[in-house]
């Protein structure tokens, strides 16, 4: 099963390597990892998507806690939360199909952020299903390149992770 973890870490050099290294050396599967600063100075937040069974997940959380720079690990999978990913998709497009593509983009409330003679770049924000759906539809044209940020997630309501 796929789980989403919010991991608060000290904002120190090498922390990302420590976390990523832990996953690779213990054979855990990372699906995506996104990291950025928080409102707390010196604290960064990682959103890590992992593919694991329950037993492995328990180990992942415990092993993460063993890293000295890890402050808190929260499992958001079962919690009501908002999750988003931002994707940039470069599609081969010319006068002939640009309008068609534009329609798909509008339907998904995505944005065209760059137009060139033979290509356009589309920015999509959303959850996994939305991104998969638009990618699927765009695949009838030639997708030249895709860049994804990895999932980020936050709890709904006033509850926070600190």
């Amino acid at each position, binding site marked *: 099963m796929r789980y989403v973890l919010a991991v608060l*870490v000290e904002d120190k*050099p090498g922390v990302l390597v420590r976390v990523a290294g832990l996953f690779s050396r213990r054979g855990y599967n990372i699906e995506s990892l996104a990291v950025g600063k928080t409102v707390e100075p010196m604290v960064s937040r990682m959103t890590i998507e992992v593919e694991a069974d329950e037993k492995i997940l328990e180990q992942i959380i415990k092993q993460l806690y063993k890293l*000295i720079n890890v402050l808190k690990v929260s499992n958001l999978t079962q919690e009501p939360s908002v999750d988003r990913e931002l994707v940039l998709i470069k599609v081969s497009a010319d006068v002939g199909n640009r309008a068609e593509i534009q329609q798909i983009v509008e339907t998904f409330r995505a944005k065209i952020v760059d137009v060139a003679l033979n290509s356009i770049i589309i920015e999509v924000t959303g959850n996994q299903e939305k991104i998969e759906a638009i990618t699927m539809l765009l695949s009838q044209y030639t997708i030249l390149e895709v860049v994804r940020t990895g999932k980020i997630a936050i709890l709904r309501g006033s509850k926070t992770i600190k």
Partner: protein
Amino acid sequence: MKISGAQMVMEALKHENVDTIFGYPGGNVLNLYDMLYDTDIRHILSRHEQGAAHAADGYARATGKPGVVLATSGPGATNLVTGIAAAYMDSVPMVFITGQVAIPLIGTDAFQEVDITGITLPITKHNFLVKDVRELPTIIKQAFYLATTGRCGPVLIDIPKDVQQAVAEFRYPENVSIPGYNPTYNGHPGQISRGARAIARAKKPVIYAGGGVTNSGAYEELLQLAEQCGIPVTTTLMGLSAFPGNHPLALGMLGMHGTYWANMAVSNADMILAVGARFDERVTGDAKRFASKAKIVHIDIDPAEIGKNVQVDVPIVGDVKLVLTELLKKLGPSDTGPWLEKIAKWKEETPLSYSQDMNGEISPQFVIEKIYEKTQGKALIATEVGQHQMWTAQYYKFTRPRSLASSGGLGAMGYGFPASLGMQVGRPDELVFCIAGDGSFLMNSQELAMAVEYNIPVKVAIINNQCLGMVRQLQQFYCKGRYISVDLQQVPDFAKMAEAYGALGLRVEKPADVVPAIEEALAFSGPAVIDFRVMSNTNVFPMVPPNSQINKMIKGEQK
């Protein structure tokens, strides 16, 4: 007053009550050694950085104090790697200090530059690259704190040359605050009660004790619990000196080369109390069928060890000593007589055995048994890795805490000899033996120079079977006897080699000469090496084939 980074290190070591360090100098630790010159700290010079690392590890295991190692950048640092990994696998408190090239040179592939914090990331509890001399006091304080608290382990501090030279105000912090590090010491009272109930209800209980008992100093508590409740105790290799091996409740080691009766007891138990042990695969064999009839109560300070390899019924996260103390308050005597009789039968049925023809070749087990008899189980012993290590576990009954140093987790050949030197340095008044194999001893035999220079009177017993015995045994069983690269006929004459270094060297070829040689080495005031030429084809039995249930043991050679 402002002092240099190198001076800060010395001041910090004094604050941490470090009186002995092991190391090897080099270009990027010039400043550190220059400042060491002015201190009272005893520096033991190894002849290879790996020797320093293992020696400091033996020092730490024998004393309970952190082992401290100093080495230069690049090759000095990489030579430590096996030593760091050995300490990490066995949870030994150690602080490694390495020099690094100056900050502006980092990342330029400078001479003797290596990313040692990167390299040691997976084998240290934590490590630091010091970028600012003002952070140095806090970092050293944190390093010692991390190494010696919670689940102990090695911590490395990498100090660039310009940080060693830079000056700043020095104030050694009194307290440590590491927000992401809060080990749990006191067990959860509810869990302790549940554990106590499980123990009290058990008719066929077994205690399975590991290195955590030693690290937490719970020797007395474990003994008291076993005696109070009449529970037999089996230990891991790491736990061997945590419970008196000659005690009526001692079952010896369990697992792959454990005793038959320990494995039978565990496999038939209705309750296992795992104390500071981690259900390593050498212990459990097939983990799914390990102790399948038992309710498992697991005490460990590291929550990640609970449920990692084996499903546990009652987890208790906490310091072993504190948890056992609480458990003791809740437990009364229980009658385990019939169970102990059953175990005694298994022991009678399949005891540890070997034969010694006094007119034939020397049996390896005979040497170890004689060392045990001569030292009455009171010596401090370091072992290398291989058959001799398992025979030591089987035939040497350890009777005192912190009397064994053996590379249990990493299984590093070359560990034992330098570790024995460290044990002796840490406990100068004790008798220290190194039980070695002919293969292992050669891996760090250069430390004979350390032994002689500092007159460290360790007695080395080389169980010389002229081959890599454990690998040969595996090739016999699993490669149809197609022996390759295990023949070690071509080794130096160890006795002459010892003499060449200035130690006492003896060679023994007849069973009748074993005891006199041990006596001669014991009578000698300095380091001694005894080359026991033993028969070469002896196997370690009993043995559990890989991934099998541990009660399905091969008891001996098919004849």
